[in-house]
């Protein structure tokens, strides 16, 4: 079982390698990847150095080019692919068919992974990408149960990677325009969701109110853990009751299900969090690395440590368990 780890900066990259990653994924400092946040990501020379650093330690590097190419500016993405290939990336993680076709044609030897942003959630969808672009691995949406994953893995002709820890998308990834509806910036087009440029925290009495653009996303009474105003994690007025309409501000944690995921035919486990600091990366990667070889009892103890890293201090098994739906 491979452990695939996030890195938003070269420092986090080194932490991930040291902490026991089998592969580290990262992106360029521009809109070609879905974590296009200020101060984050890699310049061309930084990526080259990071890949060399990883290779020297037997660790792979996956480069995410997982936004959708803006019409007329396709060259930005094509250049990203060319530079990642030249830098020695072990795989490109792609979402856009146009970009997949380009990579499959120009770099037929390059391993192509299907990003979760492509929203390939069933065997026919995945086999389409395998046949059309020779995709070697698919990162499955976080909307599937373990039973779904096992069934899908049996019917497809590529490897399966799943998210096991970190931020949770409630919506089908790559198919969500909530952010651009409120802020004009979307994951698909700009690589951002609920961008910081539109976030405001306003103190109202003892409450902390979080806003995104023109909209109030949450209100936290004193003493309650606050959350970032990600749209789908907001508290709303629904038929006059106040509730988390889509999902509580929690993180995904299904490491307790490692054995079931292995049996389901999963090749790689992925940690979310390129936007998190190197301390998060070091802690999440080393703990999950230990958990992979631990007994079930030890595993539970190890994983408790990770709760402090989670948004809202809480975790969920998300869609991996059917009741979540």
């Amino acid at each position: 079982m491979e452990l695939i780890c996030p890195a938003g900066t070269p420092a986090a990259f080194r932490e991930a390698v040291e902490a026991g990653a089998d592969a580290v994924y990262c992106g360029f400092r521009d809109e070609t990847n879905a974590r296009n946040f200020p101060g984050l990501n890699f310049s061309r020379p930084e990526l080259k150095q990071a890949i060399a650093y990883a290779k020297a330690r037997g660790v792979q590097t996956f480069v995410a080019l997982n936004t959708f190419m803006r019409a007329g500016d396709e060259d930005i993405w094509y250049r990203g692919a060319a530079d990642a290939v030249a830098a020695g990336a072990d795989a490109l993680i792609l979402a856009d068919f146009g970009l997949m076709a380009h990579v499959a044609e120009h770099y037929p030897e390059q391993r192509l992974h299907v990003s979760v942003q492509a929203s390939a959630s069933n065997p026919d969808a995945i086999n389409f990408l395998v046949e059309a672009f020779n995709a070697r691995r698919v990162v499955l949406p976080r909307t599937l149960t373990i039973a779904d994953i096992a069934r899908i893995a049996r019917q497809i002709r590529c490897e399966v990677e799943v998210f096991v820890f970190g931020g949770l998308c409630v919506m089908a990834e790559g198919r969500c325009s909530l952010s651009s509806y409120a802020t004009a910036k979307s994951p698909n087009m700009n690589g951002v969701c609920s961008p910081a440029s539109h976030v405001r925290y306003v103190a109202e009495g003892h409450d902390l109110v979080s806003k995104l653009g023109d909209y109030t996303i949450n209100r936290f009474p004193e003493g309650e853990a606050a959350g970032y105003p990600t749209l789908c994690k907001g508290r709303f007025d629904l038929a006059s009751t106040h509730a988390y309409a889509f999902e509580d501000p929690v993180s995904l944690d299904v490491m307790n299900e490692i054995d079931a995921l292995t049996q389901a035919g999963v090749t790689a486990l992925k940690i979310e969090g390129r936007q998190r600091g190197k301390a998060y990366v070091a802690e999440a990667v080393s703990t999950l690395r230990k958990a992979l070889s631990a007994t079930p009892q030890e595993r539970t103890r190890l994983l408790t440590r990770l709760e402090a890293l989670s948004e809202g201090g809480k975790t969920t098994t998300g869609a991996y368990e059917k009741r979540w739906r």
Partner: protein
Amino acid sequence: MRMATLTLGPVYFLWDGPKWRDFYKKIAHEAPIARVVIGETICSKRNHFTAPYMEEVIVHLERAGKEVILSSPALVTLERESRLMRELIGEATRKVEANDLSALHLLAGKPHVIGPLVNVYNAATAKLLAARGAETICLPPELPFSSVEKIAAITGGADYEIFAFGRVPLAISARCAHARAKGAVKDNCRFVCGDEPDGLAVKTLDRQPFLTLNGVQTLSHSCQSLIGETADLTDAGIARFRLSPQDCDMSAVATLYRAVLDGAMEAGAAAERLEALYPAAPLSNGFHYAREGAAWIAKARTGQHQANS
């Protein structure tokens, strides 16, 4: 240039069978619509509501001269859903509209239509889909005009359609927020989404209307309308304008759009009429201008499109 036509998108909401049937009968007789996309798109659990009326409705529409396209599911995760998709496409006697990647796989080589829920953001993707048999591509609603223009400039492949009226489909989830809002879960939902034929309002804690729930789908609160932008869009090569059914007089909505396309009505006046026809939601067109989707950009009456025509 060929005169642009109107397409009626699938009803995204859960309407009971008779309401659904009567809606289409009225469309068949009254609406200046060339093409009707029909069939449950959002939730596979809902199929039995409309299935008994499907054949009857299709016959009605076709007798009235409408072209009927069969919609297909937007989110396919369960084995049962995969099976339904394969059956739908395997047995289809009419063209199918793809709303998920699985449909693209099954439709390869057959003439088909791409719905607005498939991610087509650039010409490279559009060309690829056209080469696989797509004849019409309805572009994603969040696409700005600057992108629409560049994609539609590709000729010789598919023709292009734009999401011109309706609450914007913004997201879809394996989880049913609509059922959750009413204390149920998806697997035992008792079809509570049917209680709101125009969706359930999601307001902010300040009671500002924001989003709309429709089962597993999340739509905008505002109603996207590109009725003021039709001239620019047809100049750019857009051949079809999609009207997405809301719980209002869609025949009258279609008549308005037709009048604007024909140059028989001025866009500003049409927008005012539209607001009266569908008062449940404010109009928005921000996506077209690369702004917040919820924004409404009023176009000057002596717009650039008039100078061009």
